[in-house]
């Protein structure tokens, strides 16, 4: 611990010391003033006492007025002793009742000294108290500073939380929370880097497959085959090009979603309309596989979101369902709206997803055990990204050979 407790460098400390000094001066002046008041009081008391004695004596011995005044002014010690004796006889001796002006001045001096002493004691004790108090506080602050410096150097091992009462402890707790957040973000960043590297490998691999096939067809076409074979080759080329095209445009969409460059609209989306528009795109594959679609739900169900992107999400899920449901199977779509969310459920009667695959089916480039040959593992990932981007949630549950159910929820409470 760096222990240069140079407290004075803190303006707050300077200010408080200056204020203490100011208070000390005020105390001094007050002490002097109090000494004066005290002196006046004592003086008054003596005068009153003298007056009482003089008044009485003059009444008894009217001629002795001047003598008595002289006796008070010029105190004769022998007479003082005598007077003391008499007073003692009447039990009136407490302290020296006879005082002279020099005595009151001594009292005054003594008073002033005492008062100043008290003022000094009070001021210094406050000063010491302040000092100790501030020192404790500033040590805590220095501790936090040191901690923050460590965190800047990516050393997250310290824990400054002291689990005590009070604002400083709360501050430490909050700072620790920020550190936790930083730590977490550093970890996320690292994972993202890894994911990116994996993604690029996956993308290259995905592009490589159709390209190899294109090269082969291309080579074959050099050999000028008969027309019908040529047409066949060209058709194959076309379908491979289509595949690359789809892959590239999907990846582009995904990357835009990831980068957050897409601003999802916040419009009122009618669920029924959304599903109808998504199904329009699916007419041909549905016809080919002779699958039946049933729709059920309140036609007024709505949610706040982006119509086109949501349609894209639904289409990808439908594609998945159609692909994994045998010919003549059926797909059931239902939806509901409640105060917390709007839910869309898409259920097929397909062969289901393996239990081991379920946690990962929304992962990019993940291909389950039942994936078809030309599946890339990007459709569901895209649906997932779109739905999450609209603060929604998608859950899948599946029963082997019974079918798969995708449940999408768009929550309302979240702004």
């Amino acid at each position, binding site marked *: 611990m760096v222990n240069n407790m140079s407290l004075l460098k803190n303006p707050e400390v300077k200010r408080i010391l200056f204020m203490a000094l100011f208070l000390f001066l005020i105390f001094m002046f007050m002490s002097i003033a109090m000494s004066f008041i005290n002196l006046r009081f004592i003086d008054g008391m003596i005068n009153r006492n003298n007056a009482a004695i003089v008044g009485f004596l003059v009444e008894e011995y009217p001629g002795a007025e001047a003598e008595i005044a002289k006796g008070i002014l010029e105190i004769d010690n022998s007479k003082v002793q005598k007077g003391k004796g008499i007073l003692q006889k009447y039990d009136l001796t407490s302290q020296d009742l006879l005082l002279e002006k020099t005595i009151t001045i001594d009292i005054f001096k003594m008073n002033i000294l005492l008062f100043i002493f008290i003022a000094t004691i009070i001021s210094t004790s406050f000063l010491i108290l302040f000092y100790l108090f501030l020192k404790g506080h500033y040590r805590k602050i220095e501790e936090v500073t040191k901690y923050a410096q460590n965190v800047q150097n990516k050393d997250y091992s310290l824990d400054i939380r002291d689990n005590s009462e009070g604002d400083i402890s709360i501050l430490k707790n909050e700072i620790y929370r920020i550190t936790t957040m930083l730590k977490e973000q550093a970890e996320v960043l690292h994972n993202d880097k890894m994911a990116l590297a994996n993604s690029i490998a996956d993308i290259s691999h995905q592009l490589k497959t159709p390209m190899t096939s294109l090269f082969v067809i291309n080579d074959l076409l050099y050999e000028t085959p008969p027309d019908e074979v040529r047409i066949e080759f060209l058709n194959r080329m076309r379908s491979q090009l289509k595949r690359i095209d789809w892959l590239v445009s999907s990846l582009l969409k995904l990357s835009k979603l990831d980068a957050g460059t897409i601003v999802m609209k916040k419009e009122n989306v009618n669920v029924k309309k959304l599903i109808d528009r998504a199904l329009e795109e699916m007419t041909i594959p549905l016809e080919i596989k002779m699958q039946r679609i049933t729709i059920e739900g309140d036609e007024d169900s709505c949610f706040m979101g982006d119509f086109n992107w949501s349609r894209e999400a639904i289409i990808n899920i439908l594609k998945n369902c159609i692909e994994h449901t045998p010919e003549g199977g059926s797909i059931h779509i239902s939806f509901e709206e409640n105060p917390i969310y709007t839910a869309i459920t898409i259920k097929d009667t397909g062969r289901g997803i393996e239990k081991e695959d379920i946690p990962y089916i929304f992962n990019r480039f993940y291909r389950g055990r039942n994936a078809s040959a030309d599946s890339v593992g990007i459709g569901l990932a895209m649906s997932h990204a779109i739905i999450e981007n609209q603060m929604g949630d998608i859950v899948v549950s599946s029963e082997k050979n019974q079918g798969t159910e995708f449940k999408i929820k768009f929550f309302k*409470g979240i702004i």
Partner: protein
Amino acid sequence: MEILRVENLSKIYGKGAIQVKALNNVSFSVKKGEFVAIVGPSGSGKSTLLHVLGGVDRPTSGKVFIEDTDVYSLNESKLAIFRRRQIGLIYQFYNLIPILNVEENVTLPLLLDGGKINKGKLEEILAILGLTDRLNHLPNELSGGQQQRVSIGRALINNPALVLADEPTGNLDSKNSKEIIDLLKVSNKQFNQTLIIITHDPQIALQADRIITLDDGQIIKDEVIRG
């Protein structure tokens, strides 16, 4: 990032012949933002585990680390403050303070800490929980579902490291149960809130990212169902 680590946790009640091992050498860890369901038959040690995790009940042996703090190395007063700041608890019977209104019940952990109330955060939480128009109601003027929402708010207000819920829907009908679980999921997603919930309802457990099954005080299954 690891937020909770449990090492060789055991909790034994009673002595000698009547000794009961409620928890028997349980170890696992939970990552930040994970939603974990703990399931198991009655008497399997679910609630004991939750209480030990929540810093409420000292284990007989073993350690609990929350954000790298060895919870039971703290003394009672420090543990109380730690609990107040780092753990949010939700109970089956809500445990709201009957004489405090909704807003006061939600902000109770902050008030106990003497901290300032962050109005923005409070409003955000109340809006998510749909309690904005009930701020001044007392608990007995609310339905069971609403009371549980208040207790969720109380658990979340302090940004705890960990939210623990003990059968949060055990006292609610199925519609309200669904709502409560959805709200917990929202908080899990929205605030990346780590959430551990005890339940015996498989439907609820399936909503989690991971299910830990306890029996006889031991973990017999620990499976991730969502990546």
